[in-house]
């Protein structure tokens, strides 16, 4: 694959390593934290003009490797070379000076500052007098964004008001403004909707063409196959292998990641559907949910697809009583009900596994048992007290039943991995023995192994007669798991497909059809 190696950034840094030496080369990286080895003898390199995907389940060591490259952690053993020259990073500043920039999953921007200020924070152009050169700063910010096909982004806009996709562009522009020749992207699409993902992929391709070396960390295999030139897989802190993408397929990558082959990423057992458990008739909420009607049966998984902002999550919040319906009717088990608070929803047997488990799902300083008990405080009450024996038994039951990997019921949930945290959220809702389970992004940000475990659980729950409403940004998940698919767009249900007739194209088209989402 031949690519032109040009100046790596609009700033015009001549690209080093043109002689074939990788831009960044990490070899024999070993790192342990308080006696636990998290990385052992791992090597990874990034060449000019390539996308090198770094894959692995949570806990495989990806983040540690990235942080070593970014100068956040120092390796216990191993060498770092930039353009063939051995270096050592004492701080992230050294790594940046070496031309390495990282776009972290949780974007590190200042919401109250403008786009231009964020891009040039800490290294703004100066005037002769030494003050900030605002005019040049805005011009350079404009150039950088234009290079990223982001002409629509206003350099004077407040970053806090931008969408995640646009904030990410600002973060990338910030990296390029510092003449980064290696760009490390940590799960850049974790919180993007499908259309934004496509645009990001375009941006990454443009950067590659300009000779930037890109290390791309992601859980999502389709985009890895769409983008990467090479793939490196880590497992349990060790290198499983580095392969050219042409030699790989999805099944092979997954089996390298999990160390076992997963026959189907989205297992779904066909189930006989029961009676209608949940029905919405013309449900509206303040202009963001408009006239939504549907029926959900026992044993059914109803998938809701849609872009971010299409009203999917808002519908879930309305059904669950967090933002009560302003008009329309909700029927549970055939009888009309008023759901005006989560409390009531819970009493009706409606459970809600929220989109953002850190923000809405869990109380991280509390233990697994305490988190599970949150939905059960009344039922676990004995007089003035919580029946702690029953509480612990409940937690043990779910740790066992859902395969939560933890020390025990008393472990603080903040210490668990994403997949295990998600299982705790699921557990606390299954504890109430719900009739209806609403899951918003059930597998966001969790690794492939845990993901298929959650899918298997959903399938099992449905076969036991639970009615599941699943909202997801990942089309393969929607298509693979759902008996039926509703597509939302602009607050309305714009299409409905039977599981068999729902295809990526048809659903994708309905998601984007009627209107283009405005920028920012």
């Amino acid at each position, binding site marked *: 694959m031949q690519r032109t190696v040009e100046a790596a950034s609009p700033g015009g840094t001549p690209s080093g390593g043109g002689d074939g030496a990788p831009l960044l080369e990490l070899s024999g990286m070993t790192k342990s*934290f308080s006696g*636990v*080895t*998290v990385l052992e003898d791992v090597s990874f390199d990034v060449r000019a003009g390539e996308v090198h995907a770094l894959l692995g389940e*949570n*806990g495989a*060591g990806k*983040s*540690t490797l990235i*942080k070593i490259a970014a100068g956040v952690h120092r390796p216990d053993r191993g060498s770092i070379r930039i353009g063939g020259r051995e270096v050592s990073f004492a701080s992230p500043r050294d790594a940046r000076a070496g031309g390495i920039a990282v776009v972290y999953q949780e974007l590190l921007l200042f919401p109250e500052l403008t786009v231009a200020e964020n891009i040039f924070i800490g290294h703004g152009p100066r005037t002769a007098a030494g003050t900030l050169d605002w005019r040049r700063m805005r011009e350079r910010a404009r150039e950088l964004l234009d290079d990223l096909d982001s002409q629509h982004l206003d350099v004077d806009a407040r970053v806090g008001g931008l969408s995640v996709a646009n904030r990410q562009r600002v973060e990338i522009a910030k990296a390029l403004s510092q003449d980064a020749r290696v760009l490390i992207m940590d799960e850049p699409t974790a919180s993007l909707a499908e259309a934004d993902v496509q645009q990001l992929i375009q941006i990454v391709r443009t950067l590659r063409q300009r000779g930037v070396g890109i290390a791309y960390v992601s859980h999502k295999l389709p985009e890895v196959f769409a983008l990467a030139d090479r793939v490196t897989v880590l497992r*349990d*802190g060790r290198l499983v292998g580095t392969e050219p993408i042409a030699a790989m397929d999805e099944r092979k990558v997954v089996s390298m990641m999990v160390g076992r082959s997963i026959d189907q990423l989205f297992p779904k057992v066909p189930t006989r559907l029961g009676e209608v458990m949940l029905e919405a008739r013309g449900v509206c909420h303040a202009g963001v949910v408009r006239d939504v009607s549907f029926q959900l049966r026992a044993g059914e998984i109803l998938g809701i697809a849609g872009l971010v902002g299409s009203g999917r999550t808002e519908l879930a919040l309305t059904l*669950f009583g*967090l933002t009560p319906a302003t008009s329309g009717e909700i029927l549970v088990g055939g009888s009309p009900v008023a759901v005006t*608070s*989560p*409390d009531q*929803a*819970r009493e009706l047997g409606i459970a*809600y596994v*929220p989109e953002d488990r850190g*923000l*809405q*799902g*869990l*109380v*991280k*300083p*509390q233990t697994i048992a*305490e988190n599970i*008990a*949150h*939905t059960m*405080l*009344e039922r*676990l*009450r004995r007089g*003035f*007290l*919580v029946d*702690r024996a029953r509480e612990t038994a409940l937690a043990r039951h779910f740790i066992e039943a859902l395969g939560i*990997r*933890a*020390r*025990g019921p*008393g472990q*603080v949930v*903040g*210490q*668990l*991995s*994403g*997949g*295990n945290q998600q299982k705790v959220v699921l557990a*606390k809702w299954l504890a109430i023995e719900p009739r209806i389970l609403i899951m918003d992004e059930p597998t966001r940000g969790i690794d492939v192994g845990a993901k298929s475990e959650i899918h298997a659980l959903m399938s099992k729950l449905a076969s036991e007669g639970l009615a599941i409403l699943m909202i997801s940004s990942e089309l393969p998940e929607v298509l693979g798991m759902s008996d039926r698919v509703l597509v939302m767009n602009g607050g309305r249900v714009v299409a409905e497909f039977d599981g068999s007739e729902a295809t990526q194209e048809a659903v994708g088209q309905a998601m984007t059809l009627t209107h283009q989402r405005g920028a920012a």
Partner: protein
Amino acid sequence: MTAAEVARPPRPSLVSRTLEAYGQEIVVFAAIAVLFVVVGSVNPRFLSDSNLISIFSGNAYIAVAAIGMSLVIITGHIDVSVGSLIGALATIAGTLAVSGYPVWVAWVVPVLVGMAVNAMVGAVIAYVKIPSIVVTLGMLSILKGGLISLTGGAWITDMPPAFFIAQQRWFGIPSPIWFMVALTAVVALWMRHSPTARMFYAVGGNAEAARATGISPERTTVIAFTLHGLFAGIAALLFATQLQVIQSTVPPNLELTVITAAVIGGVSILGGTGTVVGSTLAAILFACIGSALVFLNVSAYWLKAVIGLLILATVLADMARRRRYRRI
């Protein structure tokens, strides 16, 4: 990014689990023990019965107020008006006592007023959604100003002898110590075992998650503040009845002392964690430090500096602990 998920992690030893769960309480307790040994060896009179009893008894009201403060901070709020509230309630108690009402009225009314006032404060914070620091700062000025205006700064004296509950001794031990120990024990158990207290921890740890679980952060906030008012009322009684006079001015910065006791006792200033055993131990620690400085012949002004250092050290420890919950 830890090794926690590489394999099922081993269960840590009982010692390290205890340290993780009750680290701060243990540290404060150890500090008190060290203080006793060191100061006692320099000046044995520090350990005399009469001195120890006066340390504990004279400061018990701070520990009682810190119990309520802990509930409020655990729920994710703060109350900077508690010092003024205690002053106002003490004045109410004294006024009722000298006006000829039965002693029990003089005892009960201030407690009820404390609960009512703080229920209102909690309701404003929860339902009008004004940050607690703002509401209670306002409350601080209202109570302080109102009290001085109404009483003209006069002292209250000549209460009937039966009124002085804090001067009573039960089984040879002054009643404030009984109050401090009993309330701390009861509330500590209640915090660990009651559904309501679970809501305090849940709302303080993550109000949005609590809401999405069907726990009302608003109702929980009002309950926490109302209970805080109850303990402020009891603290006011102990304060009002320990001397023969009630001044309409409480010790300056009482609210800060109370907040500091909670924080040094291990209640996270960000909410969601902590115990009342810790806050009571910390209140005892302050009292001991204050007394120790006297016995070591060090200027009492150093007390503030020492407590300031303790606050910083505690907050640093809290942050270090929190960092472990946050995964990268």
